């Protein structure tokens, strides 16, 4: 399986994602944002970081970069796209995913391990997880407070497009287990064709027991199968 990781000047999880992909036996390539064409890929990853310092709005400026047009084309022709953290923010700025990510409700950067629940495991990104499985995954962001209008929220629910929700250790989804104020504890969503996933938590940080746990592995292995 071939993957590409897009590097913006301020990306800083690009290496981490590449390590994860290679560990999972993807044939991975790094793609600089000024490129005007993408190598043939089954999966495109937009990694975390601060693409352009997160100035203006996080992800806004990356959303105007040259390579993004290619990503949109690939997405429309069915290529799998994974946006993690800043990557999720960029995907919303390009319109590939609906909604937006506002400042965390406490206005502070948050880095910690949180629990998330698998809401839909019938997608190419999540088939190796069990439904309602509780994962422990690291988050690290300033703007992870997912917001969308009520129509879209209904659509997300009706079409089963919510990928993950923040929860507590026991899978309880409530306000205390919502780290950033995201609407209905949403931590990640799909587009309607389910070939695009945007998520705030960092699965690439959870593939190595010596630094964390291995709860992120199944996301990558789902993609492989």
């Amino acid at each position: 399986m071939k993957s590409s990781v897009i590097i913006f000047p301020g990306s800083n999880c690009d290496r981490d994602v590449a390590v994860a992909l290679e560990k999972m036996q993807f044939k991975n390539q790094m793609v600089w944002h000024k490129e005007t064409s993408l190598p043939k890929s089954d999966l495109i990853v937009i990694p975390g970081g601060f693409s352009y310092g997160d100035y203006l709005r996080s992800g806004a400026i990356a959303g105007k970069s040259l390579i993004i047009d290619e990503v949109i084309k690939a997405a429309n022709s069915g290529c799998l796209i994974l946006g993690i953290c800043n990557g999720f923010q960029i995907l919303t700025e390009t319109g590939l995913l609906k909604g937006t990510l506002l400042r965390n409700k406490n206005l502070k950067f948050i880095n910690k391990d949180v629990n998330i629940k698998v809401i839909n495991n019938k997608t190419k990104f999540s088939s190796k997880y069990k439904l309602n499985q509780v994962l422990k995954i690291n988050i690290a962001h300033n703007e992870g407070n997912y917001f969308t209008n009520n129509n879209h929220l209904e659509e997300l629910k009706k079409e089963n497009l919510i990928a993950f929700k923040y929860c507590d250790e026991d899978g309880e989804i409530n306000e205390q287990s919502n780290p950033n104020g995201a609407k209905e504890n949403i931590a990640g969503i799909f587009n309607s064709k389910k070939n695009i996933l945007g998520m705030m938590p960092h699965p690439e940080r959870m593939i190595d027991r010596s630094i964390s746990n291995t709860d992120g592995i199944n996301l990558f292995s789902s993609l492989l199968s």
Partner: protein
Amino acid sequence: MSINNEILEKHGLKLDEYKKIQKLLTRNPNLLELGIFSAMWNEHCSYKSSKIHLKNLPTKGKQVIQGPGENAGVIDIGDDDAIIFKIESHNHPSYIEPYQGAATGVGGILRDVFTMGARPIALLNSIHFGSPSHPKTKTLLNGVVSGIGGYGNCIGIPTVAGETKFNDTYNENILVNAMAVGHAKKEKIFYSKAKGINKAVVYVGSKTGRDGIHGASMASAEFDENSEEKKPTVQVGDPFTEKLLLEACLELMRDDSIISIQDMGAAGLTSSSVEMASKGSLGIELELDKVPCREENMTPYEIMLSESQERMLIILEDGKEENARKIFEKWDLDFIVIGKTTDTKNLTLKFAGKVEGEIPIEALASKAPVYDRKWTKKNLPTKKIEIKKLKKIKIEDALIKILSSPNHSNKSWITNQYDQMVMCDTIQKSGSDAAIVRIHNKDKAIAVSVDSSANYCKSHPFTGGKQIVCENWRNLISVGAKPLAITNCLNFGNPENEVIMGEFAECLKGIKEACNFLNYPVVSGNVSFYNGTNKKNIFPTPVIGGVGLINKFTKSLSSQFKKKNSLIILVGKTFGHIGQSCFLKENYSILDGAPPETNLVNERNNGLTVFNLIEQDLILSAHDISSGGLITALSEMAINSLMGVKVSKPKKLTNFTEYLFGEDQGRYVIEVDKKGQKDVEKILKLNDIFYEIIGFTQKKYFEIEGEMKIDINDLFKVNNQWYNNY
């Protein structure tokens, strides 16, 4: 324009210093030249008050590749790997504008490390604030923490460790020290020494603005009439640009284009160009009208003294310019040849073709003033505090007082604002004795920690200086690392005051003695004097940043209890020293007595033995005992693991309170599996280590025989509430 007293004063130059300038130049300097002298001769750049004392520090060792004198220190960690690290203060800017001050502090220290060819892999910080009840403290704390996070998170380097302390002494002068640690290949280390004549001097990075120009208000008044707009301004950091600069520099460093490279830190273009030329015994000529400027009509004076961030100076090999330019353009950064090296040994400054200033390099560097300031020695306080004469207090209450105090409360309110995991090599985050960061793609890791003990140092600087090096060393040992070398940030008051100068000299002697004994050399550092206001100086606060090596990171250790029913062993002898202790401070507001003495022989012996036990996989968890004594150390281990412990009363005992809260040095708590007891005791005995088996781990309760029993969750709450309620 003639130079008068007022102008000298605004440049921080004394009259006899001015006379020395006239003599070195054999003429009067013009204003530009005076500004340059003032920047190079001030305390921050010249180390004029500290130099003769710093000279005595041990800086050598088998592990040292580069000691003090370069942008950062370099040590050998085996194979072809080197670690490059340094700590630096940003105290005054952070007090004026906490967010930007702290952020640019982080940015500055990162540049010192990647200038030498290292990819930064960890950030640390030591931050000291005034009393929490002081009206400014909360704003300063918030600003500093988000500034440190704002910069480190954005550039994508994990902030993995640090210390946060509150003490009235910093009410008017907080301390913000930032440390950066980088990894490089041994044969790919870059230095600032210029070589060769007629080599291109290249300016890269951000544009130059009127940021932080010393004495600029005065200077601009001299330059033109409508000067009110040209107020000196605070430096604003741009971590995004720094990230570009980092990547561009590392990319250029892959081949051999660079002769010499130097970041523009304090005194900007001035100190960077002088330093490169001085080290290479060369001259340097700059055409200042080529410097990319952010503002219109910037003068040579402003350009030379600007402290705009995210800039570097590079001397390139012939024929490498085009390739280098391509790299910087790829990263959208300015790349401009602004001058060349010369054989004149002068700093020559041109603007629009005209020479605006010319100063012999050595007048700015090696001939800068050096002072042997008067200092007085402080005697060891003799006052003994008798605990029996104090109001009786229950052990449980005393412990809770300590665990809920600002200084001992859990710091996750702070550390959750730092990305600790980016780069995916953080084996151990902050919260234990030292953070552990893996060398990418290798089995080995480094352990890092920063420490200080201002109260000890105030009470008796020599003992305090010695103690803090040992505490730092102990912190690295506790996680299973072999301590290799340190960097130090010496935060002191006004050196023109004999008592303060004495604190400095004595602290340094203490540091020296400990470093020598432990083979723990100083490879880099920074001095920050004049901390304080209106004759009120801060407590002497040397901050030690240590780096240790863990050959196999799988052997590293945390301070969390691992399993029920294992033995708790106290390594090292307990006398119950409570002078200057946290017990007295938090419970009686007493800050008195002598600090605990550190016996270096025991320190080394105990430490190396614990290290040995860890290497042999005989220890489940370990924690050094410091502020708050044995009981505090035990409760920290319990709280972090949510596992209980039961401690029994020792048989021979004078005073149980002193035993539990005393801050005797050189001690560790270790958790040992019962199966390993024999082996552990054998090794301890073999090495003549004093130890006591004091109890065992258990479920749920933190228990001291006959004194207290408290649910571990309650203890956790006590320890976790302060920041959230502040």
